[in-house]
């Protein structure tokens, strides 16, 4: 899973955006440019995953920072992933496995040209933060196997009991001290300075505060944002190479200002086709979006006046809305807690609790699950989530199936049909509720 969307290059000019969205695009593109220049500037390059992304730590060693999931989704949005996936399958990858992995491997095979058309350097180090999904481990093993990149493992235990036990946190901290930090020092040639880390973490916490305010603005009626399709833009900088930078802090401050203004004016979200019309449905969405048909997918919602008021996907790279902030006073412990708390590192009962809480707090009409065919981490168990949530909240839930970046698995007609019958179900439920009063 992952985050960070920028609109496809060369996209139609009429697409509407808030100012902060342009700033976001600029940030993301700037990171690609930095990566493209890294070799010429003699900079070392790291790659790591979005959940459990230790950006503050990587910055302490001056690494240029690449995120393969983000590359995959960017390539998906730019319609390049289909070919990469097939290339990887021709090289022996199974059709059954995560398409992010194949999109990434295919891109490397194809000469390592990044989504923006600039070259993406081969990483000097793969920081294998084993959070969120098992596939991460195999993914970086595959890259290491093929390209010989040095890999350092950060094993993050799963919250099987629905909480972070001290032993889990200590284990992550020990790995940071004994293995991750010394490896990063050696590869970068930069000595670790914990005060530098603290400074970055202070910045992170500021941005996190503003991000939470933005996401929670959806509690208003109408919601000024879309907490799924819109949120993928909002979470871009903070879940990737920018958390901890002053640019990210500034971005979130500006974004928050814009959104607060929208609340004041009673406005709904901005969509690629402009301001959304009347808010007719408020939904919670579980599961990542489809990237290859992202705009068509979103359109199916806003055309009907459906706004996603909150989504679990907007929490994949860190769950801030229940209070977690990076803590400069306890830097390593706080990094450990951050990794342990990512959404897909939560067990199923915690995921159900979270969704029920969202339905209540955001006064949503129901839950929609977008089940991703090649992502077991999200998908295995979602049918039970659906039932549990329906049972506990009495709100209707529905299920659609797509893929992340494999265009072969997006059937617009099927998705649209499902959505239409879901909206009908919501209306019926409402009617019934009114009748009961």
């Amino acid at each position, binding site marked *: 899973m992952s985050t960070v969307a920028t609109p496809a290059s060369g996209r139609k000019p009429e697409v509407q955006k808030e100012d902060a969205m342009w700033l976001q695009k600029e940030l993301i593109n700037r990171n690609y440019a930095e990566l493209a220049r890294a070799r010429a500037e003699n900079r070392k390059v790291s790659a790591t995953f979005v959940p459990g992304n230790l950006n503050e730590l990587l910055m302490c060693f001056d690494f240029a920072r690449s995120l393969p999931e983000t590359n995959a989704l960017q390539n998906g949005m730019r319609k390049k992933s289909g070919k990469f996936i097939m290339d990887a399958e021709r090289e022996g990858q199974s059709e059954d496995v995560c398409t992010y992995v194949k999109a990434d491997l295919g891109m490397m095979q194809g000469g390592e040209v990044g989504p923006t058309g600039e070259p993406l350097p081969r990483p000097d180090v793969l920081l294998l933060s*084993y959070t969120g999904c098992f596939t991460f481990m195999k*993914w970086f093993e595959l890259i290491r196997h093929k390209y010989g990149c040095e890999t350092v493992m950060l094993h993050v235990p799963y919250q099987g009991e629905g909480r972070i036990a001290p032993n889990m946190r200590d284990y992550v901290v020990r790995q940071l001290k004994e293995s991750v930090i010394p490896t990063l020092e050696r590869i970068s040639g930069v000595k670790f300075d914990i005060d530098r880390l603290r400074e970055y973490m202070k910045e992170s916490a500021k941005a996190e505060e503003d991000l939470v305010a933005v996401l929670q603005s959806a509690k208003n009626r109408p919601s000024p944002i879309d907490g799924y399709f819109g949120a993928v833009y909002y979470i871009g900088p903070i879940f990737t190479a920018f958390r901890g930078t002053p640019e990210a802090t500034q971005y979130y401050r500006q974004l928050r200002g814009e959104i607060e203004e929208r609340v004041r004016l009673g406005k709904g979200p901005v969509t690629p086709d402009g301001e959304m019309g009347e808010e007719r449905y408020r939904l919670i969405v579980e599961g990542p979006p489809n990237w290859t048909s992202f705009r068509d997918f979103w359109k199916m919602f806003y055309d009907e006046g459906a706004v996603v008021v909150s989504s679990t996907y907007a929490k994949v790279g860190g769950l801030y809305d229940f209070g977690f902030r990076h803590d400069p006073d306890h830097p390593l412990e706080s990094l450990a807690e951050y990794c342990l708390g990512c959404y897909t590192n939560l067990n199923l009962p915690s995921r159900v609790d979270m969704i029920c809480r969202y339905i209540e707090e955001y006064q949503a009409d129901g839950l929609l699950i977008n089940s991703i065919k090649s992502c077991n981490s999200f998908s295995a168990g979602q*049918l039970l989530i659906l039932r549990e949530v329906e049972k506990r909240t009495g709100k209707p839930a529905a299920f659609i199936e797509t893929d992340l970046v494999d265009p072969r698995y997006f059937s617009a007609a099927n998705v649209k049909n499902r959505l239409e019958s879901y909206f009908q179900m919501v209306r019926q439920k409402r009617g019934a509720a009114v009748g009961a009063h």
Partner: protein
Amino acid sequence: MQQIVGRCQALFEDLDFGAVKAWKAAEPGRKAIGYMPVYVPRELVHAAGMLPVGILGGGDQLEVIQGDAYYQSYICRIPRSTIELGLTGRLDCLDGMLFPSICDVIRNLSGMWQLMFKDKYVRYFDVPQNYQDEVGGRFYVEELEVLRRDLGELRGAPIGDDELNASIAVYNENRRAIRELYAYRAARPWQAPTSEVYLVLRAGMVLPPEEHTRLVRDYLAATDAVSRPMRDNARIVINGSFCEQPPLSLIKSIELSGCYIVDDDFMLVTRWLLDDVPEDGKPLEELSRAFLHRSASTAAKYDARREDKGQFLLRQVKGAAAEGVVFAAPSFCDPALLERPMLQDVLAKHGVPYTAFKYAENTGQMAPIREQSGTFADSIKLWSAA
């Protein structure tokens, strides 16, 4: 011999776990703890006086009806048939379930179990992917400690070190017997066909380990006493079947197609620790050291160095004098399928031939698999004759 294999076959087919029920009924207060395949420290369960029971899905005997409503079509079979076993009351004889750290499906299944079977003890059993004693080891000992405490509470008395050491000895003996069985099969595969060896191993999922050790040795003695015809088969290692098990007919088909299976990764829990665990030390630390430094490699484990990838499989190939590898993985199994290209690459570099296919625990159509492994066996024989 027929009698032993027949008994194992009956245990294998009994999806109602009659053997577990009988064991529990023999003494009041006995408890049984289920676990999914791959690795869990069964020593702890045994030390608590409980029966560890391996749950390996429903095979091709179980019709999955309710379980299908819990899983989309693009998820492997084993969690759905395991849920089916649970929902149809077949696992009521278990007092708890352990879900080992294998993959995202099992992770989530542990949470589903918590939601669906609220009155049962459920634990996701995490294992370290960092193999330093002071880092992963400390985490692991602590995890073992939690399990030991939980099981102690479940039985109403804490588990002592001496009890644990005694259980370590029991499992050492069981692993020794299984090593003998594997060594025997590698040396004389016509005498110990894998379709039988597999059933003998499976019996260990429901029998107490002491009894299973005897059974393995009885089988060895019995099969050695009858001489069976030796064929000109290709010697192969099976890889990728460490979780969802292939149907027995698939194993038979591979053998019938002209292959001797001389090593495999079926029911890896029985062979996970590669040698004896000291029986007189601090038990949890000894178990931890064995896990970190002397355990089998599967796709569920991180290889700390690139050079390590595939070495375990290569050693299996060399150790059993195999001529090729058959990759047989469950459909939709991320760990096995993502691992496979790396293993294939290592094999190719070492000139070891291989072939690959997927199966499901309920695959019924064996003709294509038989044909593929037959062609593979023929090509091996052709090359070795050349």
